């Protein structure tokens, strides 16, 4: 790798690198044009069977015998029609790095490592929206960062921000790069030098306070590392967004992230005790680390969800919990989606939701089924058949209507078992039928794997994306039905030749409502501008969500993708309030990623 040379080299547009020890380590393990690890992906093996490679996931190395058929049936896709991505980045396509020499001199003086390398810059020019991946595979971004810097601590960030103010540069903070709101895209019209501030080197746990159960952590730490390191001391944060393998603590704060197990641990706003952020105005933080204070509007709430428009979060004090003694998965089959939602609502009402409870609709149930690996023994297969027979024949469930809830319980063994019983009792009242631990566990495992599927789809003319919303309980069913229907209609109208996959799951429960997650994918053969069509459909789906009383976003954030609806979402005055904060904190728009406002 070129990034870590020990000596400064005269700047040339493509190959210049700076000081530094371990900058960009992550990037070597990750795909440059798709999701996740290089070694993990879906492929069709020589027999034409689907297979998941690598050893990182439980599904790794397993053959998925029914998956191919499912793809063909669902998307009308054929393995004979394949698209191919460019094998690697064509450096000549990449926009040149334009950096002022005076700034570079100042930067070098700080000894913060940096890079003007094309690959480094492209890697930080995007998140994981479909159109971004599509561009990586088939084209090139019009504007990317001119330089990447790797601060290793809070002080480094302060220096960088100061330099940026001095030289009037644009900083775009970069954490895990898992944004799905176009938040990392560089504004095309930005004329100043764009500095990508990569926080990945600020990844230490600074201290753990066992008395108060808090930990102070540098914001660049990635979710799985944080949990791993805390686990060494017997703790966890319990914050597990689906992207936790790659997303960073700072990113969570900046987007108001939500974790799968929020029912026990809370969302990021419940977890955070203290935030330190570097802004062009200076450093913003509180004077103490207390559970709650009444000192006017909570300044944390200006920071959380600011999406990199105000500054860089450098250190966060976060609540920690002892690692739970016992974990148990579970699943329940419901005769239909309506009953399932009613059950979730009742669980929420009784405030007995397990760490996680999710309800997938029939299409997603079928999809999960298609991802079942080849069974090891005849016995398991027999058991599966027996279960299926029991559910469909004996209990009269229609396999094309039924839906499944997956559950995750955590805590003391005894309490978990008690809790489990309570939840299953409720489920029974709504016609639910316990469907075993294995199904539940597989459901959660799929959450991580499902993200890899898009790359497979892209190879076969299938494009897709997920999006989410939150909605009051009484509108959940209507919203799910209408949004799915809207997607199908829009596809039809836009000339999509094959009916799309349009499916949803209720993925979080609250007292007053739920979070709903949609997956949507279609076969784009025969469409000349699939991305445009895709974006139109996605926009229509969002319109539909809003018309059904859903929110603009539950946890993905606004970025640049959903900006157009901000005014409608928070009113003119609300938007003005946010603007005035931005104007005060960053009058010269140093943090010029143009998100949110």
């Amino acid at each position: 790798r070129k990034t870590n040379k020990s000596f400064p080299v005269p700047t040339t547009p493509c190959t210049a690198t700076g000081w530094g020890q371990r900058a960009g380590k992550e990037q070597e393990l990750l795909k440059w044009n798709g999701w996740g690890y290089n070694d993990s992906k879906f492929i069709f093996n020589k027999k034409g069977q689907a297979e998941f490679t690598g050893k990182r996931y439980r599904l790794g190395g397993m053959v998925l015998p029914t998956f191919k058929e499912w793809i063909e049936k669902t998307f009308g896709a054929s393995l004979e029609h394949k698209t191919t991505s460019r094998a690697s980045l064509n450096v000549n396509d990449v926009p040149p790095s334009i950096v002022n020499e005076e700034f570079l001199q100042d930067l070098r003086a700080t000894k913060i490592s940096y890079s003007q390398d094309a690959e480094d810059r492209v890697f930080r020019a995007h998140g994981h929206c479909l159109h971004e991946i599509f561009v990586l595979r088939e084209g090139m971004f019009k504007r990317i960062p001119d330089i990447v810097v790797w601060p290793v601590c809070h002080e480094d960030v302060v220096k960088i921000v100061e330099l940026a103010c001095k030289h009037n540069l644009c900083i775009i903070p970069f954490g895990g790069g898992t944004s799905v709101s176009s938040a990392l895209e560089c504004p095309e019209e930005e004329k100043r030098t764009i500095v990508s501030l990569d926080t990945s080197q600020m990844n230490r746990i600074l201290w753990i306070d066992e008395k108060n159960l808090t930990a102070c952590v540098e914001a660049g730490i990635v979710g799985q590392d944080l949990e791993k390191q805390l686990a060494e001391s017997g703790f966890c944060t319990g914050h597990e967004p689906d992207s936790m393998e790659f997303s960073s603590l700072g990113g969570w704060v900046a987007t108001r992230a939500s974790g799968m197990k929020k029912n026990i641990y809370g969302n990021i706003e419940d977890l955070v005790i203290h935030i330190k952020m570097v802004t062009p105005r200076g450093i913003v933080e509180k004077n103490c680390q207390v559970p709650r204070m009444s000192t006017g509007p909570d300044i944390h709430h200006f920071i959380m969800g600011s999406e990199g428009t105000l500054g860089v979060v450098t250190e966060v004090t976060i609540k920690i919990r002892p690692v739970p003694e016992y974990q148990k998965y579970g699943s329940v089959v419901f005769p239909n989606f309506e009953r399932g939602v009613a059950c979730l609502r009742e669980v929420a009402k009784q405030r007995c939701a397990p760490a996680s409870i999710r309800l997938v609709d029939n299409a997603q149930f079928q999809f999960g089924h298609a991802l079942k690996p080849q069974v090891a023994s005849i016995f398991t297969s027999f058991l599966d058949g027996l279960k299926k027979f029991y559910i469909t024949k004996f209990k009269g469930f229609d396999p094309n209507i039924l839906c499944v809830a997956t559950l995750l319980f955590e805590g003391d063994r005894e309490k978990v078992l008690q809790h489990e019983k309570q939840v299953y009792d409720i489920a029974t009242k709504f016609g639910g039928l316990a469907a075993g631990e294995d199904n539940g566990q597989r459901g959660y495992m799929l959450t991580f794997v499902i993200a890899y599927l898009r790359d497979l789809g892209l190879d076969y003319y299938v494009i897709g994306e997920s999006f989410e919303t939150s909605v009051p309980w009484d509108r959940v069913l209507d919203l799910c039905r209408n949004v799915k229907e809207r997607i199908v209609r829009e596809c039809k109208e836009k000339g999509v030749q094959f009916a799309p996959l349009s499916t949803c799951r209720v993925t979080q429960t609250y007292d007053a409502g739920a979070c709903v997650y949609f997956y949507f994918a279609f076969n784009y053969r025969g469409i000349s501008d699939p991305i445009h069509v895709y974006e139109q459909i996605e926009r229509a789906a969002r319109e539909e969500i809003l018309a059904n009383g859903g929110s603009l976003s539950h946890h993905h954030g606004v970025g640049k993708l959903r900006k157009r609806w901000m005014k409608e979402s928070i009113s003119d005055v609300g938007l003005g309030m946010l603007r005035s904060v931005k104007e005060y904190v960053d009058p010269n728009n140093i943090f010029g990623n143009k998100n949110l406002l």
Partner: protein
Amino acid sequence: MAPPMARCPRLPPPNRTRQPGRGGAGPWAPREAAAGSRAARRGRAGERGAGRRSGARRTMATEAAAAPGRARRGAPMYSQKELTSKKRDEFEDILEERRLSSDLRYAMKCYTPVIYKGLSPCKPNAIKSAVLQSEQVQYVIKQLAKEMGESPDIIQEEATEILDEMGHRMQLGAVRFFAFTLSKIFKQLFQRVCVNEEGMQRLQHAIQEHPVVLLPSHRSYVDFLMLSYLLYTYDLALPVIAAGIDFLGMKIVGELLRRAGAFFMRRSFGGNRLYWAVFAEYVKTMLRSGYAPIEFFLEGTRSRTAKTLTPKFGLLSIVMEPFFKREVFDTYLVPISISYERILEESLYAYELLGVPKPKESTSGLLKARRILSDNFGTIHIYVGQPVSLRTLASGRINRCPYNLVPRHLPQKPSEDIQEFVSDVAYKMELLQIENMVLSPWVLVAAVLLQNLPAMEFELLIEKTLWLKGLTQTFGGFIEWPDNLCAKKAVLSGLTLHSNIASLVDGHVVLNDKGMEDGAVGEMVFRHALAVLMCATYRNQLLNVFVRPALVAIALQMAPSFRKEEVYSCFNFLRDVFSDEFIFFPGISLKDFEEGCFLLTKCDAIQTSQQEIYPTDKGSGTVSFLSAMFRPFVEGYQLIFRYLSKEMKEAFTEKQFIPGVRNFVFQLLEKGSTQCYEALSSDMQKNALSALVQLGAVKKKKMPSGFTYNVNQEAVSKILDMFDDSADAIPEHNEFLFPEYEILIEPEEPEFPADSTDDEQGAEDTSKGAKEQEELGAAGTADEAFQSLDEETLEAMAKHETEEEKIFQMFKKQVAAEPEQIIRYCRGGEEGPLWVSGENRPEEKDIPNCVCGAKRIFEFQIMPQLLNHLQVDSLGESIDWGTLVVYTCADSCGGGSEYLEEFIWKQDYSMGCTL
């Protein structure tokens, strides 16, 4: 690999098994035999029957299902009609098959209608209890309980009763019973019942996809029986129908209707919150669950005039609400046009419009109606329009906030933009109904005939009818005129079918207003009015097709110049005035105007330049035909406005207004001072009143007892003036403004030496009485007149030596010198007036003194010739006098500008009387 399209939901539904009873030629036969092409079908229009049996006709299923989304997307709510390229489906006669096979077997056929894909099947009673338990109804019950201090149980009980009164109990048995009896009855009554099958196919798809609301036009009770019958025939889910509660008066029939799917609503329940909540929830529950298509009439009631009534919004906004709240993905609105060649209730309607009350629906009334079973009512055309997606209509129009921020079960007054949207949709649907109304040749005949009363030569009628056919088609009217049918036959068959209205007598077509010769004047007016109104019912079917160009034509005549702005401003005025009479899409006056101009240009009636619109020589016939067509409305409205501005000084209710204006018009008709019989129609009277309310010239106030109205005299006069400005444009036909004349003032012929005449003085004094300037025939003396009598006259006088005769002869003689005289002026002249008769001349004591105490002296007299000039001289019908003698104060008191009371003496030819 599976064929990619196989699972795509937009494909036609899987083939449904054919019904055995249908003998292979059932209406869906063509659908399954998907061969041939649409073009082939068109080409084979002539040999329909054959084509049908061969089954070689292509289905439009795919297209139809795909169309709702795609075709209309982004289309504005109102789009200028494509008037000529408009292609409409073809009709099939559903009675044809009923005449060939057993009705019983048909009634007992296996009936498995297609249903909404998201339907969770349930029984009518389950719906009722769902309604009662719904949050919406429970909320209102709790609210009312709190407000009234009653226990919720009592109110719940009340709600149950309401629901029982209103709810339907659809049962297949009743449906079969109806299928059987209606087959019998319809076959008896009607020659053909024609349906556009493509429309039925579209409907079939729509029903499966989304909740469907059927919006038929309403001309007859037959409407909803027929529609249910039709859906049964085509194996579609039977609709639940919002029927007026008065049907429940018909004991057995009401119950039967209920079992066939009718539910009943009270005519008015504005104030009753519980009723509203229960009713709205009942309708919405059925809609949301996709239980059955909901059917109701936008017009609210049967149109007595066959002219589309302005829409009612209540039910429409109820059925739209589930979509606004996103409880359903979409809702299809299906406009259905049901056109009758002859309306079952035609004479009932005419009586009703004239104020003879409508008989309350009763079973015995229906049985009596059996008499009409022996009559022939021609053909019914049912055109099922393209289902309109509410979602498409609403796209971009609805602000979602109000629905997101309040729990959906709370009753919420619709916001202004929602109300506006509902109204727009209602008008759009009615315009779609109008577009596909089938016009029979008789409609054209009626329109021509009404302009040529009392009698019209048969040949001329045919010629004019043919001409009108062309014009109607240019304007986009949907005429069902078989290709090979010659005009004469068409007119004749119309006359045969409507022999109760008009008949052919000696080569002339006349209205059947029998009893014209005998009977009192009033009776004659009534009979004639009846005939005119019945005939007008048919002409009216053309009006909404013609209204835009016709109003442009009238505006052209009204406007002071041909400048576009002025013509448009007249058009706009007319459009406003007639906003309740005809159907205009709200707020697009200019578009309507442009459409009118476009159509007139198309038929060469007008030419337009940048600034001007002017009629062509060639088009004068068209323009005058059009304005004559709408003249009854122009004149009728003026009569009604005049009545309001003159007679209604105080607040009044509609119950007072209708008989009042009816009497007013009736009297004018009796006198012969108007020929506008249609102004007797209560429909027109109500519309005119409501137009004034909308124009702000009449104030409508809600009182505990109902609405009262207050006339703003000035404003009404102003509106009348707008019409009057155009009076000279249509002079010979203006039936309530007297013709204008110039009056010449001359002294009487020299052989009668003039006495004192003071022209100026006279002009001043008399100008107060009449609008016209007076003619002064200078009075001669009676003696002088006497002297001048020639021998001959004297002889005659000798023969008839009565005083009476003598005086009349003298009168005649005197007048003969200047036969056109209308006023004789001779203030204070000793000779006094020229009497018509010896009888009933006033004595001195008969003339009261002036208020000031001075004596009143003769000033001038008005001669009976005036009646002639004013054309109010029909004997026995008009006002009449021999002479009117005016006496005024000898002292000429009261020199100011105020009016003074004078004394008038009326002497008749035979018997005089004082006024």
